[in-house]
């Protein structure tokens, strides 16, 4: 089941259902995924900017839409540029990534909790 890469390291077999995690180190060619990822990330950015500058919808809806765009942006960055899917064998990077998300959400969540103080005292 194992195969060898050009530098002689042995690759672990990819489990069924996890083929999308298979390494893509040896694949060469024009980096279409990266170019398209770049274009899409710019589109998402400018879409959010235009919506806000034009006050295109009511504030609450606007907030929801740009949050959705931000999530799409984050997924795009992780998938295309941050090596989410690349791994030799087990995708160890997913574990610290989960930890990073946990810390980020905990920090953002508690920050919102802390900064609600104005409604608490006024």
């Amino acid at each position, binding site marked *: 089941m194992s195969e060898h890469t050009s530098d002689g390291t042995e690759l672990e077999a990819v489990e069924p259902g996890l083929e999308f995690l298979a390494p893509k180190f040896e694949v060469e060619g024009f980096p279409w995924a990266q170019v398209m990822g770049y274009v899409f990330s710019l589109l998402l950015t400018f879409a959010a900017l235009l919506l806000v500058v034009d006050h295109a919808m009511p504030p609450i809806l606007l907030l929801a839409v740009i949050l959705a765009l931000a999530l799409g942006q984050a997924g795009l960055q992780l998938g295309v540029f941050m090596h989410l899917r690349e791994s030799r064998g087990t995708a160890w990077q997913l574990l610290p990534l989960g930890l990073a998300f946990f*810390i980020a959400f905990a920090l953002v969540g508690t920050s919102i909790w*802390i900064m609600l*103080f104005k409604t608490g005292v006024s």
Partner: protein
Amino acid sequence: MPAFLLYLVHTLFPPDTRQPTELGADFMILVTGIGIVYILTRYKKWRWLWREWLTTVDHKRIAILYLIAAIAMLFRGGVDALMLRTNLALPNVQPIGALEYNEVFTTHGTIMIFFMAMPFIFALFNAVIPLQIGSRDVAFPRLNAMSYWLFAFGAMLFNISFVVGGSPNAGWTGYPPLTELAFNPGPGESYYFLSLLIAGIGTTITGINFLVTIIRMRAPGMTLMRMPMFAWSTLVTSALIIFAFPPLTVALALSLLDRTFGSSFFTLGHGGMPMMYVNLFWLFGHPEVYIVILPAFGIFSEVVPTFSKKRLFGYTTMVISLVSIMFLAYGTWVHHFFTMGAGPTVNAFFGLSTMLIAIPTGVKIFNWIFTMWGGRIRITVAMLYQMAFIPTFVVGGATGIMLSVVPADYQLHNSYWVVAHFHNVLIGGTVFGLLSGLYYWWPKMFGFILNERQGKVGFWLFVIGFWVTFLPQYLLGLEGMTRRMYTYPFGFGWHELNVISTLGAFTMGAGFIALVYNILWSLRYGERDLTGDPWNGRTLEWALPSPAPEYNFARIPVVHGVDEFWAMKEQGMTLANQLRPQDVKALELPKNTGMPFMLGLSFFVGGFGMVFEWWPIAIFGGLGVVACLIYAAFDYDDKEPLPADVIRHTEGTFGRLQA
């Protein structure tokens, strides 16, 4: 043309940079600069400087560069501290006025944290970590050089603010609205934001670099639970850096946008939220205090076993407490602004989480004491700093717990009690730790041993000076003296304590002079470290010659347990008597490059342009940054071969090759 020149002089040298202290600094910079240029030219050392130091990617040389910068910044921050203490020594006597006092305490804090403690820590990371984990280099040698030059040029940008354009004056925390353009015009605060942003990129890169180095480049057999404790503390510190610096970057960048481009993130008007800056700053700021203390914990965990001739007591609990400190460090930041009034629930939560940190820290303190218990203790300078650290840090920790009690904090907030507390942990913890590490690893870095006798003189001056300075400040805090006041009237009963405190500060200054004298004296007359193991050490760095050859290990050792070098010595083995000529293989070393230096220089030019809003210069610097990055991305010729014969020859001259 004269109008243009007049504008230049007026912008670059406004009236508050033409005061006696600034003119004195101008003179010293000029004299030192001319002296350096003269010596380099006289002895034809320009080429040597460029090839051996400015373009180096060797972690051991980068460590020395960091160390030189850190000691220079310790001098600058220390002189600032003496200026502050002189101004406060007597009531109503003000050698420097209110405005300059603000600038000096801002500079003192910023320099000591970002440009003294951080590079000092990175100096020891760079000097020790690859050797300790049995690696030939860090994971990304070029990024390592980039980190250094971004730090160095960031520090330079901050330092020139004193003499060019005017210093920042809103405290090391840079809170709005003190930094808001309407209330604080002039380039000072822009210097602060830009220099910290530039140095912050370097710091983040260092965090990533050492995290990857420790995860990926340990010698075979060195599992995580066999790593030396300093490597563990470096791993945890790197993780803290990676998560802590982004909030700072965001806070600084948005403040800069507020100042430079008229946005309103943190302004008083237009819906800005100044307290959000405070929240973001301490989201970084609290992990930051652990970023500077955990390496000191790691240093003590190396120094204590070596000089007690015992293995570290409670290795596993040490690791558990390090990791739990890492997590808890993210959950305590509100204790820096309890008085914002976020409500009893929020304050109680963060008060309790702050108290929790004392538990793992206490575990570590007891582990060091139990390591010494029953050991054969040698009182060296490194060990002395450790023994001074324990009581000092316990006092600093206990006063911190007192501050975590929210009602008490409302009384003590912004008083000299707080000033005394954080100096107690930062000097008693970080600085004692770094000086201990400096004496301990100096032979490994430079190949000679610092004089122990002179070191002890410096130690006693420094430690006694420390207590004489800061113990009175606790009392001053209780008597109501507030932080950052530039003078005080007679009759509050503050002047005796202030005089004592100032005397202590000058004693610490004498301790610093003793350290510098010791370095210069030992450079010339100090005992050379010919064995590579002057302290009878326990970890792998002592298995190498001092200083280590550029490839570190001729053959990467295999590790079987904690304290691998100690185990080797017990079995009568060394790295040398295992190395036969045929074991030596040719290597590839990273090639020196001028790119990191040019990148730092571009950031400096761009940052300088931004400070004065001279856009052509800013854009020019920005283009330089882009050019350096493009060059770096396409420069595939980044390795050079090191033939096996050269390695055999080097090992032979050390007498470390079997015939």
